[in-house]
């Protein structure tokens, strides 16, 4: 009797354990409410378009190197050169005393690699895409390649040789070494040529707004890349292709930075508030600079009649009577209405690319020459033509004109001084303790620490 009872219980227990513990269904969860699987993303045009928007949203975010905020290349790269005067004494970029564990250097390194990962993920995802239109396949591939080229362009100019990554496999990407700059540039050119052939010729993808890369955006960057790599003929050709396009026209000085100006080739579009640049450089009348102001010795180079001095620079005095100059290209600090977009590529630069390429090729003066291109830019600023005639004079004229035209944008000045070998000459009087190695930023410590293959590959001078 008792035995039987125990048996029953024994079986009950077995059933209980078996019933409860192998409840596999119970521990299966639905997908998170905030996420889509990767496979789902590449099943429709709208979703692929979302993945592209995700990249631009990251690129323009205030914490990115491209966001125009205090962590941006515009701001910090400008400090590294003679663009800006810093309000802070302990400012590593301003004093060119950056340490490898610097937070901003990490941003400069990791945000482009984030964008590269996303571009690579799109390129890989497109291979197995289902239900995506041919037009979108082409457009997405073109934009992804453009983004990858764009990111590498900035990486090599900030850091020199950088690891070249074209896949998403993290095992591979976690053990990379530095690729020689020339090889990275080759990839940039290949990607941009692909993008040129894949992308459309209008701004239809941005609903008419100049916020998404098209063929001309790729062309404009390609012109710059050729210029940076000394391929003068191609630089001239590509710049001419942009300049000759009816979409683009130099706009008056005052309206050049308004959203979708005819000058704009590509801008980061914004819907919530105006540009970070307008906030960050915002002048405070009666106060010494909150963060940055323009380097007075650089401002002194402007011709007093230059409309860019009058319209793109705000002059103010603090309570001690000291005069400060602020970049005033972007002026709208208010949230709404949005009137300005943060411009990445614009026509003015293309003229100056061509001017430099023509100078290097010996097309110095006369119609279709370097001088003609410079004069086009000067004329818009209300200035007479230049008098330079020799190659040396013209190169200097281009250098100066690039400063007058492109100051406080995307660290153009910093990159120019570096690539033309003029950095040491111009910066050492301004910056105590300047040394030539400071032209490259240090590779972030977290890359060196976490990628064993990078051991000992820090840029020279940094330790």
């Amino acid at each position, binding site marked *: 009797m008792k035995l039987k009872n125990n048996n029953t*219980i024994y079986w009950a*227990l077995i059933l*209980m*354990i078996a019933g*409860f*513990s192998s409840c*596999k269904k119970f*521990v*299966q*969860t639905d997908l*998170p409410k*905030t*996420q*889509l*699987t*990767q496979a789902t993303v590449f099943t429709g045009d709208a*979703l692929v378009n*979302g*993945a592209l*928007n*995700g*990249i*631009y*949203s*990251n690129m323009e975010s205030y914490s990115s190197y491209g966001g125009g905020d205090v962590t941006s290349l515009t701001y910090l790269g400008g400090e590294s050169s003679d663009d800006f005067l810093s309000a*802070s*004494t*302990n400012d590593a970029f301003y004093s060119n*005393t950056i*340490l490898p564990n610097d937070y901003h250097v990490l941003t400069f390194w990791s945000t482009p*690699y*984030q964008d590269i990962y*996303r571009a690579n*993920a799109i390129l890989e995802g497109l291979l197995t895409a289902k239900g995506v239109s041919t037009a979108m396949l082409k457009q997405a591939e073109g934009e992804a390649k453009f983004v990858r080229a764009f990111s590498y362009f900035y990486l090599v100019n900030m850091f020199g040789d950088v690891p070249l990554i074209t896949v*998403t496999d993290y095992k591979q*990407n*976690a*053990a990379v070494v530095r690729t020689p700059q020339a090889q990275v540039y080759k990839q940039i050119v290949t990607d941009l040529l692909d993008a040129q052939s894949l992308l459309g010729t209008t701004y239809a993808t941005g609903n008419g*707004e100049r916020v998404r890369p098209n063929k001309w955006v790729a062309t404009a960057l390609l012109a710059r890349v050729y210029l940076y790599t000394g391929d003068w003929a191609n630089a001239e050709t590509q710049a001419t292709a942009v300049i000759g396009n009816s979409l683009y026209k130099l706009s008056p000085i005052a309206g050049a930075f308004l959203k979708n100006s005819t000058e704009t080739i590509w801008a980061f*579009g914004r819907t*919530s*508030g105006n540009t970070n640049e307008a*906030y960050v450089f*915002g002048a405070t009348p*009666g*106060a*010494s600079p909150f963060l940055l102001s323009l380097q007075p010795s650089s401002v002194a180079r402007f011709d007093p009649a230059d409309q860019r001095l009058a319209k793109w620079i705000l002059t103010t005095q603090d*309570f001690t009577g*000291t005069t400060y100059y602020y970049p005033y290209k972007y002026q709208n*600090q208010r*949230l*709404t209405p949005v009137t300005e977009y943060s411009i990445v590529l614009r026509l003015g630069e293309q003229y100056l690319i061509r001017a430099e390429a023509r100078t290097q090729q010996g097309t110095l003066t006369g119609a279709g020459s370097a001088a003609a291109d410079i004069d086009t830019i000067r004329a818009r600023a209300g200035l007479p033509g230049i008098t330079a005639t020799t190659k040396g004079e013209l190169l200097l004229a281009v250098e100066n004109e690039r400063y007058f035209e492109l100051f406080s944008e995307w660290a153009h000045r910093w990159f120019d001084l570096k690539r033309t070998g003029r950095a040491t000459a111009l910066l050492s009087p301004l910056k105590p303790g300047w040394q030539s190695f400071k032209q490259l930023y240090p590779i972030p410590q*977290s*890359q*060196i*620490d976490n*990628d*064993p293959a*990078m051991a*000992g590959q820090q840029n020279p001078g940094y330790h």
Partner: protein
Amino acid sequence: MKTGGDWTRPRLMFGYQHNDNRLTCYSLHPPKHCKCMHSTKTKLVMRATIFLIIVASLKVSAGTYAQTVTYSGKNVPLKEAFAAIKKQTGFVLLYKGNILKDTRPVTIAASNQPLETFLKEILKDQPLDYTIQNQTIFIFQKKTVAPPVVTTAPDRQPAAEEPAKEVTGTITNTNGLPLSGASIKLRGTSTGTASDAEGKFSILVTPGQILVISYIGYQDRAIKIGKETSLNIQLLVKETALNEVVINKGYYSTSQRMNTGSVSKVTSEDIGQEPIMNALQALQGRVTGLQITQSSGLPGSNYTVQIRGQNSLRNLGPDAGNYPLYVVDGVPYISLALNGAPGPYLASNSPYAPPGMGLSPLNSINPADIESIEVLKDADATSIYGSRGANGVILITTKKGKVGKMTIDGKVYRGAQKVPRKIDLLNTQQYLAMRHEALKNSGATPLASDYDINGAWDSTRYTDWQKVLIGGTAHITDANLNIYGGTSNVQYRFGGGYHRETTVFPGDYADQRASTQFSLNASSPNQRFKTSVTINYSFEKNNMIFSDLTAMALGLPPDAPALYDSTGGINWQKNTFINAPNVNPLQRTQRPYQNHTNNLIGNAVFSYDFGAGFVLKTNFGYSTTATKELTKRYATYFPPSQQATFPPQSNFGNGSSNTWIVEPQLSWHRQMGKGNLNILVGSTFQRQESEQTLINASGFLSQALMDDIQAATQSSINTAYNGFTYKYNAGFGRMSYEWDRKYLLNLTARRDGSSRFGPDRQFANFASAGLGWIFSEESFVQKALPFLSFGKLRGSYGSTGNDHIPNYGFLNTYAVTSNYVGNPGLIPFQLYNPDFGWEVNKKLEGALELGFLKDRLMLTASYYHNRSSNQLVGYVLPPTTGFTSITANLPALVQNTGVEIELHSTNINTKALTWNSTFTLTIPRTKLVSYPNLANSSYAYTYEVGKPLNISRVYHYAGLDSTKGLYTVQDVDKNGFITYLDQHSTFKGQYFYGGLQNSLRYKGFQLDVLFQFVKQHGSGFVENSNPGGVCNQPVSVLGRWQQPGDNKSVQAFGNSYDALVGYFYYTASDAAVVDASYIRLKNLSLTYQLPQSWMKKAKIQSTSIFLQGQNLLTFTGYKGLDPESQGLSLPPLRTITAGLQFIL
């Protein structure tokens, strides 16, 4: 003695009032004056009843009555026989109306029989009994006096020669206070009862049987019953019987004596001595193997809690894998705060962002509601928690109702808190001299922004910023009121508490908690069906200053301007006092923060005893935590010149987490001769849902409207959302066998499934075995070691797991990101790894428990050896991967070993004076045993094989260079550069820690003193900046290098790049890792219980007044603010409180 007074007075009174009192029980016609007795003194009546019986029975046995009866009859009603007695003897017979209903007719032939013999004869086969008092015979039903006796197996009572009789008694403690709910059992049977609210009981006993009286916290007493029928039993506090303490091991309980695992227990008594908001604090210094570190003195901030060291390499961030499992009344409880750490969104706008790591989730539980906290450590104790047990388990049990009359218990205290220590900083003169010297050394002149020395600020000003910013007095207020009581079938407890703590900062900031607790236990009359419901609800309201002012108090130049301008507004000093770090600290007052947290933990348990040892029990639990945060940045946060640029902004954060759990379980208990078998099987279904939302809104029309999202400019609203579902399912079992109270075996097992793992990786098994041998029960040991009162050897081995990893880590997903020109963006959410599986933690423990001098000295020494393999970590990746980490299993093996010693001694134990001491010591060691290919992994420079996990990679400090006087570090590889290759590892952690508690009681006084000690290395006090920078410094920097030939320890003042690099190397060198050991008078509590005689008059059970202090003294060689919190955050505060407790 005062103990007697309580009892003797009523006794005298009963002596002459018994005639009235008896009638309330037995009389058919109570006299008129009885009613008033009854109504006014019910309590006395009940006591009197028992006395009546005692007195009566004494007289009966004395044989005073020699009346005789002559009566014959066949099958006559009993009533007739009674009538004959009355007629013949003149005695009155009293009985309740209907008790004769079930009596049998009587057949008797008696001739001049003594009255008692006659009574016995006629009542022989009746369900009745009698007593005689004076000339009155009371007839009553057998076994019906006072509370019913619980008899589960009456038929098994041993046959006795003498008939069973009613024995009544009263159980009190040595102070004469009645003990209600004490267990009274007949040894060798399952018959027993419990004492009532007055401590009284009644039980049917056969002479010769032994009554065993037990009560939690008191020594058992065994009384052999002879002729007596009434007992007055005093129980002694069980101060020498620590090993009988009941230990809750979650799914089952055992006693300290029979326990085969490692469990530390802290009770409400210890918790009640500390004026704290969070019960975790009471564990510091009291529990071996438990390391609790307070990293911030902000009220309500979190603690780092580790049980037996770091098991997982994953030690940072919201998914850190080293938090223990908290279980409150059987309901798993969140181990991380909803603000701060776990939500990436909420953290950035909370003053509790690291280092405080958010508000502690345990703030929601009122320490006054906690009955006990058990810390489960070894495999024997934690394997039954399977995948959640690797880091140990902290079980919190809240207070329940008690059998007894309704009792009201109130406690109130108030007190003050201060920063205990100041750092001696430079005064204005010294500071300015330092700054000028620094510029001179660097060949520079003051910049436009060097306001501290360029004339912008009044260089004659001096402000002691420590005094102004963190020198205030914080106030602490705490009040609790609880009501409890119950009968043997229903017990209840309910009440509420309030706690408020302010800060030392200027301004009105406080963390407040209101809490209520409700507990109800009910059981069926036969005690087979039992149910209990517990509900804890609390509301925490916090309006902390937006960020800690401590770093500012230490760093602001002493000549910084006044806080207020002439109009009483924030002084921006002509826009020179506006840039961090030299910004007016009042700026932070313009960024109000508020946090509202609601917390509910509800638990219902139903159990049914089928008999034959089977009990089916199901636990239903639900807990929900909802946090609402709001940070407002007023336009006035910025000086007027910048207000156009930075519009007012509000950050709304909402977080919630809900968990439900159902745990059906079946247990079986069987006593088989000397063997005692317990079997438990059960299963767990658990689901947790968590959600967090952040809305950033800006551009408000008015400061007054900033709580209203609608009032924001539409286009400025950014939102973030984060949510997850976690599901968990398990089956578990336990089997324990005890033989002869000497040999103990305890086996546990669990099969766990968790949704955090990918398909085919979801389930895993965990098991443990615990063994114990109470060798002091062996006769040869008793002979050989007579001084040994208790001796046990125990050991355990088993496995646990760790699933503290992010949810959905195995999925390859895209998530929504911010819009781009109004179009939603998608970004890859994570690098995915479908193959990661459980981290396995194997635990081995051996322990020796000894008791000497009748257990007056108890020693527990244990050694543990835990190994964690298959490490599941957020594997840090270089940024070139596009991400910072990936969840993966690593082939690494982490070992934690340690020795824990616990010593309790009863130094003095007399009625007037008792003195107990408890000493705890933990010596933890952690080691990375193996890590294949570590050199080529991301952890190459974080960990080192063969070294502890808590190491820091540092340069070797090499003194000042002789020409510039700057800090240098050694170029170990002599390649001319200082690189990471020149770094070595140094230990940064605890070598040992523990506590010493002394409790003294003298008459009404009780003094408790707890010292906590820690031997450790930690971060030295690192100044805000290099010596010479725009930042104040400790006066010790005056011993700086000034000229070649100086032999100094502080580098030359300077602001050059070289000076900054030198300072950077110094802070990253072994010179910055210092001895941060300390001994702290953690807690002091002095309580005085007002004399009982006063209380009697006021009809109060007891009243005590007390003084309590926390962190009163710290002995340390550490140079910074505090060796525990280290760094530049607000240190743990010194607290002194005074209060009052009363029990009605």
